[in-house]
């Protein structure tokens, strides 16, 4: 099926730059409550205003191939880039994914992430593909660098890590 292009499978099996790294200015944990996909994103930004650069973006993603691949593609595309470029790419990917297929995506702007264009036809999967990008937006905001595209988020930020919730595995307290 055309959704699972080789590029997506490749990114999901070997996510680009995966693993959480220091130093970082902000860390967020987002989950997709309908299916339990989870992602932790850390950002490290240098400079300010128009000179701000995303020095490092590290992540730990647990989820379906679409959400992991999308986060991996994001890391590949914007790590080391000026925040202005991250803003443009963030808006472009969001437009493509929420276009129901009308916006095929521009490879020159979003790189490998054009492979995710097929996701737009499956409304249930759009959240998966946006998970990492929404976490990025949130992490940058917490680091004091709000992206200009401040529309609704599709995932729910959480402050605690569900995998370590105190009552989750022990049985009777």
């Amino acid at each position, binding site marked *: *099926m055309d*959704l*699972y292009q080789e590029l997506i*499978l490749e990114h999901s099996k070997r996510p680009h730059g995966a693993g959480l790294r220091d130093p970082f200015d902000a860390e967020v944990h987002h989950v997709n409550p*309908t*299916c*339990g*996909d*989870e992602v932790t994103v850390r950002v490290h930004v240098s400079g300010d205003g128009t000179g701000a650069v995303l020095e490092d973006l590290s992540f730990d993603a*647990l*989820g*379906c*191939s*679409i959400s992991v691949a999308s986060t991996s593609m994001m890391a590949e595309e914007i790590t080391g880039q000026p925040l202005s470029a991250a803003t443009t790419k963030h808006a472009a990917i969001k437009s493509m994914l929420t276009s129901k297929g009308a916006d095929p995506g521009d490879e020159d702007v979003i790189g490998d992430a054009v492979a995710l264009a097929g996701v737009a036809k*499956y409304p249930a*999967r759009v959240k*998966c593909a946006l998970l990492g990008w929404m976490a990025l937006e949130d992490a940058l905001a917490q680091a004091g660098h709000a992206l200009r595209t401040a529309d609704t988020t599709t995932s729910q930020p959480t402050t605690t890590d*569900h*995998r370590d*919730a105190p*009552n*989750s*595995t022990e*049985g*009777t*307290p």
Partner: protein
Amino acid sequence: MTATHFTEAEVARIRADVAILSRTVRDGKTLVYLDSGATSQKPARVLDAEREWYERFNAAPHRGAHALSEEGTEAYESARSRIAAFIGAQPDEIVFTKNATEAINLVAYAFSNATTGGGGGTGDRFRIGPGDEIVVTEMEHHANLIPWQELARRTGATLRWLSVAEDGRLDLSDLDEVVNERTRVLAFTHQSNVLGTVNPVRELVARAQVVGALTVLDACQSVPHLPLDVRELGVDLLAFSGHKMMGPMGIGALWGRPEVLDAMPVFLTGGSMIETVTMESATYAPVPQKFEAGVPNAAQAIGLAAACDYLADLGMDRVHAHEMMLTERLLAGLAERPWVRVVGPTDTTDRGGAVAFVVEGVHAHDVGQILDDQGIAVRVGHHCAWPLHRKMRAVATTRVSVHVYNTTAEIDAFLEALDRVPEIFGVG
């Protein structure tokens, strides 16, 4: 004599009653609907009954004295009787709710109302506070977990739970410790919507009775699939949803022992549930009216009664036999695929037709997508049982769930479609 599953010709007749099963999806592929655990499909008889209500009887039941209202009330109350009979109950032991979720919340709020002195009721039995304990199990649907978490939070009572063992069955080794003289209520599922496990109701009820705890059974996944008699089960209260048993959405029920319902404070208040009202206060109608505030979902209640009639005509023992035949075939097929891990019992002993599994190395969303692309509808995710998934070490699972209209050919089609997963993802 043990009941037999339906023949191919019989299933074909059932399928002919359920129009949606003959539609196609995703560019002309035949729909294979294996998600009845989420919601079931409806036969024409149910749809006709709802339509007939609006075409012939539509009026507010129990209000007004005109001809339509009288006939409407009679139709609505006849629905209650038929639904009651379906589970071996008396009509006035059935309280209509919008679904099982509301039914369970009704009970949880009855406890808090009793605790704060509201809601009428006479039940000390429902008073709860610090030092008291509420017991659930680790395999509960969120609908039978969160209302109790909230009750504990509101009242200061402690929430405890029975854990689930590796094989997907309740670990009852500490039953006597967890359910003890401090336990006020034991709420548990009859059949897990994820694992398919059918829990030992009598054993749990016996322990609850020793310590005087009220028992609440979530029968969402059992009433639609097996012959059930509330008096044989021995529980105090039981909740189920119409939409999972070929009935409409928007209708469910709480069954309760008369003396329990009688003593229980009310939850929703307003019109139709009163006896007398002054500006200062009100007294409440007898059960079940005192729990049914507002104009009811009458058409849906009548649709649900039609679903009960439909299932009763098929024979619940045969419905069960049919589903178990399909489940056995499904489990055998999955067992032949070493890259599949079934989450739950792997044989048909004390289990029903909800089968969750993991394809090692592939997220359930991806499994579901590949099946969906071939027209096969299954559920993926945590199925509203997140703590259970964590316990079973699965971020998410894929769940196949059957109902009476499914065929062996559909099980085979699913298994064949599943083989695309390792092909595409290069695992197994």
